[in-house]
């Protein structure tokens, strides 16, 4: 077995043994499940509206209200109530979304969106018009034609896929997961490097294998572990969404998941190299935060740009960010999931990220080899480069 493989296996096994990792994994899965359950519960409410009708004057509203349901995107249920007091109670308790009293008054608990109220008002106008036309002696057939004309054909100039909401949701989940995984495991690489120096085990290990083997083994082992955790999270998320029927999962789900995983690997490689340079510069855990701080900031900035890219996938900022190697692993999956991105853009962006990761791998290995045995105060990047070789 090669030294790299041995190192990778140790990283994988020892990390997986740690309580912190298990707790973090469970928390993450719990969070995903909680989000799914909550959206399943709240999502269900919006599908039906119940309207109470008080008095015979209100009965005329029944049929037109039911007919207006599809336009509102809901099913309208109607219930006849004996008195205004009963209607008030029903609205107050949340049993009713609205009540029409004697055809003269509308009761609602609050009127945030106003869509249901507007629908009722529109029914009122329709009824008034019908009464006026009947009184004017318009024949019933003509009346029916006038009141329910054939629907206008609608042509959307900027059509959005029916599953747009689901795609946006997926993009948000994907970018959050990518960010968490990249920054967590990037820091794990830096922390592992520093830990070996702080515990002084580094010299024992380096008397058996070369620094390059240790570094690559560490990145590979942590990457494999991160991949397992990432895949597990996505798997639970997709399975949960299907079981709970939360999102109309777009037909692209399988491919989208594979794409996000591929981007995770590319992003992890890139950031792992940068974090390993941060780890190479210090030999005490206390010093790591100050060195890794700027890098964390860069990661957060890239994350925010990608996150807001969900709502503006075609803005210049998002497009540029989807090609810059540091932000591409988060911004490009967002653009791909939310909007329509030509395949060549995806390929070019992915290649750019991989190329920069490959260049950084060499640089970080050189810096690490030169600094692995240096203990003491933090080194500047310039000095670290000077001692390499």
């Amino acid at each position, binding site marked *: *077995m090669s030294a790299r493989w041995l190192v990778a296996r140790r990283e994988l096994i020892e990390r997986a043994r740690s309580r912190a990792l298990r707790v973090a994994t469970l928390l993450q899965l719990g969070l995903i499940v909680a989000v799914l359950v909550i959206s399943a519960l709240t999502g269900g409410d919006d599908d039906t509206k119940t309207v109470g009708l008080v008095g015979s004057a209100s009965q005329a509203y029944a049929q037109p209200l039911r007919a207006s349901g599809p336009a509102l995107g809901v099913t309208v249920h109607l219930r006849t109530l004996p008195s205004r007091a009963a209607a008030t109670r029903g609205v107050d308790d949340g049993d009713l979304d609205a009540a029409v009293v004697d055809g003269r008054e509308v009761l609602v608990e609050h009127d945030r969106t106003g869509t249901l109220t507007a629908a009722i008002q529109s029914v009122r106008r329709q009824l008034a018009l019908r009464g006026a036309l009947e009184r004017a002696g318009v024949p019933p057939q003509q009346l029916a034609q006038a009141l329910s004309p054939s629907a206008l054909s609608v042509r959307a100039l900027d059509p959005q896929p029916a599953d747009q909401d689901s795609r946006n949701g997926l993009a948000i989940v994907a970018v959050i997961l990518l960010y968490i995984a990249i920054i967590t495991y990037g820091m794990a690489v830096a922390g592992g490097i520093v830990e070996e120096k702080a515990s002084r085990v580094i010299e024992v290990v380096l008397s058996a*294998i070369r620094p390059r083997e240790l570094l690559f083994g560490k990145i590979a082992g942590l990457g494999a572990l991160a991949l397992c955790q990432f895949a597990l999270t996505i798997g639970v998320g997709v399975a949960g969404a299907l079981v709970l029927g939360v999102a109309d999962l777009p037909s692209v789900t399988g491919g989208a998941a594979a794409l996000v995983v591929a981007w995770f690997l590319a992003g992890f490689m890139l950031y792992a190299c940068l974090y390993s340079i941060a780890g190479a510069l210090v030999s005490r855990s206390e010093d790591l935060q100050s060195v890794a701080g700027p890098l964390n900031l860069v990661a957060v900035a890239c994350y925010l740009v990608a996150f807001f890219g969900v709502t503006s996938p075609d803005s210049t900022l998002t497009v540029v960010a989807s090609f810059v190697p540091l932000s591409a692993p988060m911004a490009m999956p967002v653009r791909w999931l939310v909007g329509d991105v030509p395949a060549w853009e995806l390929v070019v962006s992915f290649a750019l990220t991989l190329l920069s990761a490959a260049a950084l791998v060499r640089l970080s290995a050189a810096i690490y080899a030169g600094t692995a045995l240096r203990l003491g105060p933090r080194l500047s990047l310039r000095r670290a480069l000077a001692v390499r070789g």
Partner: protein
Amino acid sequence: MRTASLRRVLRCRDLHLRYGSVVALDGLSLDVEPGRMTGFVGPNGAGKTSTMRIVLGVLGADAGEVTWNDAPLDPAARRRFGYMPEERGLYPKMRVRDQLVYLARLHGLSAAAAQSGSDELLERLGLTDRARDELETLSLGNQQRAQLAAALVHRPELLVLDEPFSGLDPIGVDVLSGVLRAEVARGVPVLFSSHQLELVERLCDAVAIVKDGRIVAAGDVEELRRRGRERTLRVTVETGDGGGWLDGVIGARTVDGDGNGSVLVALDEHADAQAVLDRARAAGPVTHFSEVLPTLSELFREVVQPEPAEPTAEEAIA
């Protein structure tokens, strides 16, 4: 010459190393031979750790050569060396046995060999019942044993230990001495550095004294203690009154006396120690008769100190 080339000998030749403007090694040459325990002594900063790191390949020399069995050292050969660095440390959260198996495998052992080697060594060092515990939960003494195990677990062909005795209690010293003797008996060349010169004198067959990045004295310990010195005897005659009784013994002279019958006698190459004894017995009852050799500490001070300090009585005779 043919047989010599088959012996497992480590040779450092003319090693040079600089850290910026500081010269760490200045043409250091050193041999470590099999079947012998070699002590590596010298003041702090003389270049012991740098030399050992270069041998183990964790540090590169600016110039010079290290050979093993008369061939330049390569990573494959180094992988079969055992090393205990001055800065001790293993993975704090890793279980002791897992740790040893891992290190043995990094040194090229198969999984089965690494496991049996680890178990055997844990047994030998009395750590078997702690094998599944995380290293950081062990007592300091047991952690030191684990560190020793890490250097030995792959049955190295050469052992290099940087200050292995520092911080050990007397029992730890005995355990380590026993283990090192066993390794030497197995034919493994052992090189260790130490500031505890009495210990080096007691344990080592050979010693190398380093100063300012060069070896200033090296070789068999006994030989070094005798080399370039007159033989000196300490003789105590109960009724003696100084060294008057010595008059007329060829090649012998009194160099020091305490007035109570104890004298130091320097002998040249013609002198006969037995003649001195005969003359002493004639003068009165002899209660002490011994050859005086400088201790390693004295030798060390002689070769290491640039200006000899106020000479002590025994050093003055040299």
